[in-house]
């Protein structure tokens, strides 16, 4: 694999873009290192970290024992002592074992110790689901972590963000959870050269303009929104798509502005419904917007409130698809006469 650092615009995939982010960080920032399970294996984390150990050495690209809690705590400790570690959890479900270090420690130290202790750690959590893997190999727990003050949570949906939000996360002085999704690894795009930008400058972004309804997603669900927008476009429905990108701290201004114009909102969330992130988006709109500006009740498309099944018969209907998103959007629009 070529080293893309310093090259001009080039086409790349989502997984490779993550790797480009690592190459940039590890070559330009001596205080960056990465630690987690599978970093010396060619298949653990898809193609997102291939051969980094060979390029940057096994001291900065550290494969580990099966010890999520200790590895995360060690990253927190190194972050307190001047490093910018990226701890890798090849599956978000396994990261649950590290919850204490993420929630009680990394997210709290700066505030609790009077602003004197900084924890610039990035916790990379990979969503990896489907394929009949079942309840403990499928979870998208972004809502859970977005609930925690002090922990920034980002979900790249685009190839560019896969690289650039990683870089912004690692260079941020706060703990950041960076959540990528294996279902996006085949996306491709042309990327410009890297420009380092502060994470605090990032937030929800309109990725497709329209006038009839506002579709909101994060990570893979943004991709679903875009697919649904294509379906709707064929029916002369113009959907806006907003990619939230940063779930915490959440800045709803772009969504409010859009819904103010379209009067219709459908939020698509890869997590469960109850107390999920889609509810936060809808609540933010409901609180801030003049109710008369809403032309229909806001909708959400989420997972059903059930663990992921393994059997094909049950898995087939478990994950929402673009067609369901389009159906939900249509339901928020006035009925049309069919030709």
């Amino acid at each position: 694999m070529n080293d893309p650092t310093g090259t001009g615009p080039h086409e790349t995939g989502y997984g490779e873009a993550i790797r480009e982010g690592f190459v940039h960080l590890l070559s330009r920032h001596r205080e960056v290192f990465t630690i987690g399970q599978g970093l010396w294996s060619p298949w653990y984390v898809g193609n997102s970290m291939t051969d980094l150990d060979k390029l940057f050495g096994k001291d900065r690209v550290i494969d580990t024992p099966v010890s999520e809690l200790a590895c995360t705590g060690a990253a927190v400790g190194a972050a307190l002592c001047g490093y910018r570690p990226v701890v890798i959890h090849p599956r978000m479900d396994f990261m649950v074992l590290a919850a204490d270090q993420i929630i009680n420690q990394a997210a709290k130290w700066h505030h609790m110790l009077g602003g004197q202790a900084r924890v610039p750690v990035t916790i990379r959590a990979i969503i990896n689901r489907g394929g009949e893997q079942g309840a403990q190999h499928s979870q998208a727990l972004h809502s859970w972590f977005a609930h925690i003050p002090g922990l920034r949570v980002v979900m790249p949906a685009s190839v560019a963000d896969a690289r650039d939000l990683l870089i912004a996360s690692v260079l941020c002085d706060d703990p950041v959870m960076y959540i990528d999704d294996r279902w996006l690894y085949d996306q491709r795009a042309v990327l410009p050269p890297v420009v380092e930008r502060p994470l605090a400058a990032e937030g929800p972004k309109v990725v497709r303009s329209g006038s009839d309804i506002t579709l909101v997603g994060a990570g893979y669900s943004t991709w679903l929104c875009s697919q649904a927008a294509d379906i709707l476009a064929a029916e002369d429905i113009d959907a806006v798509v907003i990619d939230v990108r940063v779930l915490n701290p959440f800045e709803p201004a772009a969504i409010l502005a859009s819904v103010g114009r379209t009067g219709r909102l459908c939020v698509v969330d890869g997590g469960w419904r109850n107390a999920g992130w889609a509810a936060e988006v809808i609540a933010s709109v409901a609180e801030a917007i003049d109710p008369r500006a809403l032309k229909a009740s806001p909708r959400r498309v989420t997972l059903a409130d059930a663990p992921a099944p393994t059997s094909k018969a049950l898995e087939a209907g478990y994950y929402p698809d673009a067609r369901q998103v389009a159906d939900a959007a249509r339901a928020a629009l006035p009925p049309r006469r069919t030709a």
Partner: protein
Amino acid sequence: MNGRAWQSELGGLADPAQFTEPLRVGKADGARLSDLLRTMLVIRHTEDQIGRLVVEGLARTPCHLGIGQEAVAVGVATRLRATDRAFGNHRSHSHFLALGGSPESLIAEVLGKASGASRGMGGSMHLFGRDVGFHGSVPIVGATIPIAVGAGLAAKLDGGDSVAVAFFGDGATEEGVFHESMNLAVVSDLPVLFVCENNLFSSHLDIEFRQPSDRIGRYADAHRMRTLTVDGNDVLAVEAAAATLVEAARRGEGPALLEAVTYRFRGHVGPNEDLDVGVHRRMADVQAWKQRCPIRRLRDGLVAAGVLSGEDFAAMEREVVTDIGQAVGLARSAPYPDVSALHDLVYAGPR
């Protein structure tokens, strides 16, 4: 390893060139040992068939095969009763079958069928067979270790002489909960057998890159818990160690760790040998370990003792293969669970 001297404390037990000879068996024990051999064959061929279903594309759920490690499950299971409580991990086909779970219900589960061990809701990595004393397996590494401790606590509160057993790998001993669980079991004097199948690998990574020693038993020493380390490809050695430790637990003498040194012939997941994903896994090692095949060693021992002829063995294997072929056929034609199960099974009580 960088910066520290790594030492194999297991020595010959981790060297596939050793312990390859036929097992020494007494003729008097012939019938019982033939049964053990048969159970190992059932496990081997069931997993082989599951591997074929993966290749065919019918089984998609991740399947971690224990081919090569059959003697551990069988040796321990022979010392357990249906009233004991055993728990497994991601690689638990062998535990389920050794305890008496049926190949058909395992294969059906792998295919996501309603007749499966977990009624089609779990797949290969989430198995259940309470009627044979198998109280569940899950793929979160280490998760069932404290759960087994809880089952041991329940057994102690029950006042009988049941024991709890946790089957797990060497990788699981790197999770903190393993150490917490051992300590809790020791201080509470619980009837728990911790069974570590030390196959020297955690997915792609050799134990040499993960721990300062290859002997898992040292953790029991630290917790002042009884431990035995045996050749995990010798079903008689495993059985003897299990007998000692399980009987002690039944007598109220507390928990113990049984370390069985073994090796998987297939890759971490799926039917291939997967050398490409192992940092240190070499074809020469796989081939060498096949010389230490637990099935062949017992077969050769039984033949040498005059219990079985080569033809008897071939007939036994043919019978097993035929039975499993039928089990595969039944599993293939079994129905899928009703889609209502997705919602109806979320809560035990009304929603």
